[in-house]
């Protein structure tokens, strides 16, 4: 009995060893290492519908930022890599920019595709080289359950909302239903820091860094405290607003277009999307740009470049849009059978950027690895001012000092909406 068991154990061990050695021999496709299209459904569509048409096998992996950076940094350090192609946000690729292959020749090889020139120039990081090629873009918009519309304050147009009207709207909904009905993604997986950087600050101060501690910013935080009264307290747990919107826990939300698509696709008749509200300084909004880059350790630069060019074809861009709800970076005519989420948020993104008072605000440029610290300044300020009720002036002064250190350390010049600066962007 005992002997037989031992025999089984040994057989099992031998089998395991045999398998683990055999597993090594399998053929590998081009490895596309990305931080985007991470949800399993999107990954699946990227693999079959987008990359399936390339003609050669491509392995697409969506990663958390931690493993993404650890892996690529290890490969760069070891000087030998398996990752052929990188996909990431403008801010993420920035910290790797000195280890990326110049992609200028790919750009000239894309032929008649009209690539958005603003986005192309973003991909140079101010150098003479094309560090990354724009891949896809998105933005953050507002979404509302149609039941909420009846509580809109008199005279307010949901397509041209202001922050004051949003507060009044929230108050009306809370009084009518007994619980706050506005939601923000303030959980650990949420993107609330982008709300402050790309929406609130530009709308109230017309700046992100320079006027961080200005009197306008002080007024802004006080207004936001009033808005917070109308915000569902469960917001500090929300990651993706599509879920509380679907369950009806929240009626009005601000969120990334990709993180709204489930709600809009499942119940297209239940929801409306509209541009973010405007503040005294304009309608702040943040376009999000993802790019494709090739690391210097790529095992097959030529094929990786061919794949990068393939990703910019109008057909591929439309397939990518279907897969991820990220919008094309080249000029395309959209077919009529797009999913509801794409139609709704596409129209809203266009309306938002075309609004007469639009105040576009870019993702941080040139702060590289300090990106996380930069975001933390805004989240810390939010937590101290709103959640802990500390004095606005004092918190702003203290956080401004941290912000100034980040700017001095990274030597990053100002980016939109702040006016360009010589040397590091000043915090006044």
């Amino acid at each position, binding site marked *: 009995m*005992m002997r037989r*068991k031992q025999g089984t*154990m040994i057989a*099992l*061990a031998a089998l*395991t*060893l045999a*398998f*683990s*050695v055999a*597993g*090594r021999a*399998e053929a*590998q496709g081009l*490895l596309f290492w990305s931080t985007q299209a*991470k*949800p*399993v*459904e999107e*990954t*699946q569509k990227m*693999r*079959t519908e987008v990359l399936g048409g390339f003609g050669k096998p491509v*392995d697409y*992996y*969506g*990663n*958390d930022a*931690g*493993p993404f950076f*650890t*892996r690529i*940094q*290890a*490969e760069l*350090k*070891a000087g*030998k*890599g*398996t*990752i052929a192609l990188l996909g990431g946000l403008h801010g993420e690729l920035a910290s790797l920019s000195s280890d990326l292959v110049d992609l200028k020749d790919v750009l000239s090889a894309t032929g008649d595709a009209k690539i958005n020139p603003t986005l192309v120039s973003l991909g140079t990081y101010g150098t003479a080289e094309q560090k990354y090629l724009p891949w896809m873009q998105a933005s953050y918009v507002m979404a509302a359950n149609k039941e909420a519309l009846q509580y809109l304050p008199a005279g307010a147009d949901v397509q041209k909302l202001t922050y004051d009207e949003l507060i009044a709207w929230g108050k009306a909904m809370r009084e009518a239903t007994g619980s706050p009905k506005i939601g923000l993604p303030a959980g650990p*997986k949420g993107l609330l820091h982008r709300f402050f950087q790309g929406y609130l600050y530009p709308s109230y101060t017309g700046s992100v860094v320079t006027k961080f501690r200005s009197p306008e910013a002080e007024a802004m935080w006080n207004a936001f405290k009033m808005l917070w009264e109308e915000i569902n307290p469960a917001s500090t747990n929300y*990651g*993706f607003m*599509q*879920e509380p919107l*679907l*369950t009806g826990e929240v009626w009005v939300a601000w969120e990334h277009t990709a993180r709204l698509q*489930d709600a809009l696709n*499942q119940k297209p008749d239940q929801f409306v999307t509209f541009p973010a509200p405007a503040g005294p300084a304009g309608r702040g909004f943040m376009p999000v740009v993802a790019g494709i880059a090739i690391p210097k350790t790529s095992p097959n630069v030529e094929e990786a470049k061919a794949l990068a060019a393939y990703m910019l074809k109008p057909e591929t861009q439309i397939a990518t849009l279907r897969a991820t709800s990220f919008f094309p970076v080249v000029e395309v005519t959209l077919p009529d059978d797009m999913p509801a989420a794409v139609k709704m948020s596409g129209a809203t993104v266009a309306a938002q950027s075309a609004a007469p008072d639009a105040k576009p605000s870019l993702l941080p440029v040139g702060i590289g690895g300090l990106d996380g610290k930069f975001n933390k300044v805004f989240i810390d300020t939010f937590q101290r001012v709103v959640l802990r009720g500390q004095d606005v002036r004092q918190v702003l002064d203290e956080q401004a000092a941290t912000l100034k250190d980040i700017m001095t350390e990274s030597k990053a010049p100002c980016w939109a909406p702040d006016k360009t600066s010589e040397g590091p962007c000043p915090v006044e």
Partner: protein
Amino acid sequence: MTSLATTEAEASARAEPRSSGRLVMASAVIVLVAWVLVPIYLLVVNALGSVAAVTAWPKALVPEFDLASLAFFANYAGVPRALLNSFLVAGLTMVLSIGLGAPAGYALARFRFPGANLFRLAVLMTRAFPLPLLALPLTVLFIRVGLDDTIIGLALVHTTLAMPFAVLIMASLFMSIPEELEEAAWTLGCSRLSAFRKVVLPLALPGIAAAGIFAFVISWNEVFAAAVLTIENKTLTAFLLQSLDVSPLPLKFAGGAVLIVPALLFLFAVRKYLFSLWGIANR
């Protein structure tokens, strides 16, 4: 009649403290069982439910069998392969940590040698450093020596993580087996090795198996090293977990079920070894 009633009342009065004790015991058991079973129940109901049923409340008692969410994973390229990898890595981790942990545990239990305490501490120290901190240099090293993206390489890392438990569990296990038994075997003509094989090992086997199962579970649940050290040979946890936390709810539940059901089945299959470890501890 009255006398009968009195005795009954007396009996129930006498039984009262015991029955209230039982009530506390029973409710504690129920709470503990529910603690484990309710999440699994919700996971299964939601994994089997349709997309609409997942966001609905209250939940149906008996799950409906809408396999759409689960079918997604059956068609998701790489899941069977990743599942196999998970079993291979976890199996190898189990074998390695028993192979290395059992002798180490035996030595700690039976011999007095200089540095025994230091060794005990050093084994524990492997858990003192967070993996994300070690991952970068480790990956660089693995790429250079060619261990990168291999099942053996990952199993080695997981073995390091499982080692403290394996060594400490097995040290206390061997300590609980009386040395006299071993000495008796020596007097009857056994060498140190054959005494270990014929006397100590059969007694320790269930405990060793339990330590191995522990190693299996640690390896099964580990994400970060698996996500960074492997690419083509990802384990199921590394393959799915990063994507699941940002996936829609129905897929989260289905993926969660895909992740835990194989591990649950494995634990169920080997449960008798786990229980027999308690048997040893009680002896």
